[in-house]
């Protein structure tokens, strides 16, 4: 290989590394950037249509039926429920915008959530309940104690659509068990927006 060829090759490798590095960085950036988030009501809102269990903590998960990132969230919920069977009431609320079909609503995500023991899956027409609980992003999870006090708010995945152990789900497990949790109890949410941009 001549010196010229060596330079061409080395330059090509460098360009390639930079290009791929930039792509990977962008992807990481995208995956780790949380969605919009509002603070949930500290006490159970009175107007909520969701049946409140006064004996057990209540877990609410707001989901966009088509959000691919929420597949990991539903997966994490499944693990939480396995760990906390009988110790929590859980509802998964699928936002149903006006005018969409049943088929649109009852996606794979709906079916997956329905299969989790102890979880009740509900329609949330026009996202009224989501709005009531100040949830803007699919994957927003809330935990209220039996007295209606907010114990946890945020996401239960480490990144956008990312499976695996994470601080959010670990915290919520501890709270369901009734353990005291050090540090924060609200986490970043990674998922699709529940509402149109103009809403």
């Amino acid at each position, binding site marked *: 290989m001549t010196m010229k060829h060596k330079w061409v090759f080395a330059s090509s490798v460098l360009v*390639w590394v930079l290009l791929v590095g930039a792509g990977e960085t962008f*992807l990481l950036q995208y995956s780790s950037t949380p969605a919009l988030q509002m603070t949930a009501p500290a006490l159970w809102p009175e107007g909520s249509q969701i049946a409140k269990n006064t004996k057990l903590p209540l877990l609410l998960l707001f989901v966009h039926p088509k959000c*691919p990132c929420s597949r*990991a969230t539903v997966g994490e919920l499944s693990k939480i429920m396995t760990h906390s069977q009988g110790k929590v009431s859980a509802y998964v609320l699928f936002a149903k915008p006006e005018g969409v079909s049943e088929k649109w609503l009852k996606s794979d995500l709906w079916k997956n959530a329905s299969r989790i023991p102890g979880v009740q899956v509900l329609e949330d027409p026009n996202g009224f309940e989501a709005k009531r609980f100040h949830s803007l992003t699919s994957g927003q999870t809330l935990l209220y104690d039996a007295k209606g006090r907010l114990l946890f708010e945020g996401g239960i995945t480490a*990144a956008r659509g990312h499976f695996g152990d994470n601080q959010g789900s*670990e915290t919520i497990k501890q709270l369901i068990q009734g353990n005291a949790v050090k540090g924060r109890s609200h986490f970043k949410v990674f998922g*699709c927006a529940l*509402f*149109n941009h103009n809403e």
Partner: protein
Amino acid sequence: MANLLPLNKSEQIQARSEALFREHQQKIFKQTDRVFAVLFFLQWVAGIVAAILISPRAWAGTQSSVHVHVLAAVILGGAISFFPILLALLRPGKTSTRYVISVAQMLTSALLIHLSGGRIETHFHVFGSLAFLAMYRDWKVLIPATVVVALDHLIRGMFWPESVFGVLTIEPWRWLEHAGWVLFEDIVLYYSCLRSVNGMKEIADRTAELQWVNQQIEAAVIDRTHELRESEEKTRMIIETANDAFIGTDEKGMISEWNKEAESMFQYSRAEAMGKQFSDFISEESREVYQKGIEKFLHNGKKHASNKCIELTALRKNEKFPVEITVSPIRHNGSYRLNVFVRDIAERKKAEEELRSAQSQVIQAEKMNSIGRVASGVAHEVKNPLAILIQGIEFLMKKVDQTDPDVRMVLQSMQTAVAKADIVVRGMLDFASVASVKMEQYHLRHILETSLPLVKHQLDRQKITLVQEFRPDTPELMLDKNRIEQVFVNLLLNASHAMPNGGVITVKVYPKKLSVGDPFTGKRKQDLFHAGEEVVIADIEDTGHGIPPEVADKIFDPFFTTRRTSGGTGLGLSVVRNIIQMHRGIINLENKEQGGGARARILFRTSGL
């Protein structure tokens, strides 16, 4: 300074083994590069498909757009895959190509893990990729891959640990555990690579050794083949330059070999003779002998006809000539091949004939010599008594009364008888006296002219015409004038005796340069005349009754005569031949080819007496 000494066996095998190993290794490197080129493309497509299936679109209420993962699968996946594919196609087998492929494969793993949402199952891609990289059988390729994994975990562990380890409060050394599992597989693959490489080296060693042995065998085969060719060439040269014709045939006599001498002997080119039957070149009368001999041999294997010289008559364009053949059969592939050596013995036969003739001449000369001595003795003993008888008869004829017819008749008979005896005695003395000659230079014409008056009366009486043809360029010769006169007189008288009713005697004298094929020439030193020699020829031709065939062989014998009743002594031609031989010439008496009559031809040498 380079070692210019030739390599020994082990060094040669070692060098070849290394070359074979490198060749095999390069082949594997290139093949694996191509496998990865395909794999990268498939992984790229798989990534896009996975992204489309898992996260096709990003949503906001009822609004949606293409998910970033799909774009990442297409663009970033393409960027990762394109460069190693290009290198695998353009620079297969290069170390740098393998290293880029190694890095790119790990980056592909990272992308796929990301696209699958970090599913634990997708992490197996990392371990599968390392196993794939081990296909190179080059453990060093595992290093860049391991470094990429380690760096990925290290950097992300430092800046965003939750993306790798799932928890935020991770221990700083946790990345080492993940890298440790990769290293664990690396160690397994490292040993696997080493074992594969050792196996390849063993194969290369064995192959090199086999090739060396093959090379030796091939060299030996080439040498033997060369020697065989040389031997064949020598044999061919021997056959081609042989003085004998060499003809090879199969059992059925079909010709497959035909050397130059055969071409010359039979006047058939090799191409013409090929495929013909050898028996076609043997005369009809000899053909049966030859074929029977061969058939007998082929029937019972006994060599009746082989390795023996058999004299046959061969054919050369319908001309017959004597040959001697030797047949050597060779057993080859279950059948016989017949090698026939043919020798033209025409010259030998001629020489044998000439030898027989020479021997006969020697015997004849010896006989003549003996007869001469006897004749001389007898003549001398008889001559004196005869003289007394002649004188006595003459005295008695004068003294005795001859009126008595009986007395007169007795005396005349006695006189005639004694005269005859005297002639015989004189002839015998002539015959015996040709022992020495006195040579001087003469023109044959001059001697002939002095001889003619002696026979003129006889010729005239028989109404014989004499024609003389003398070539003016005839050179002078060393001759005994009296003896040659005697020769001419004898021959002219002989000719006249053959023509009792008249005729023509032609005498020709001319010079000639002898050529090959002249009946008097020979090749041997002892032959009197040779081709190219200058001679003077004297022909005396008559138009008489010719020489009867039954007497042709005895015509020069002493005392042989066909005119015994008319006074012939049978010594004339013997004396003539003796005189010619004393001149180292040749005389030949034969019938003429045309017109009847006989011809006496005498050859005189012009020099070297």
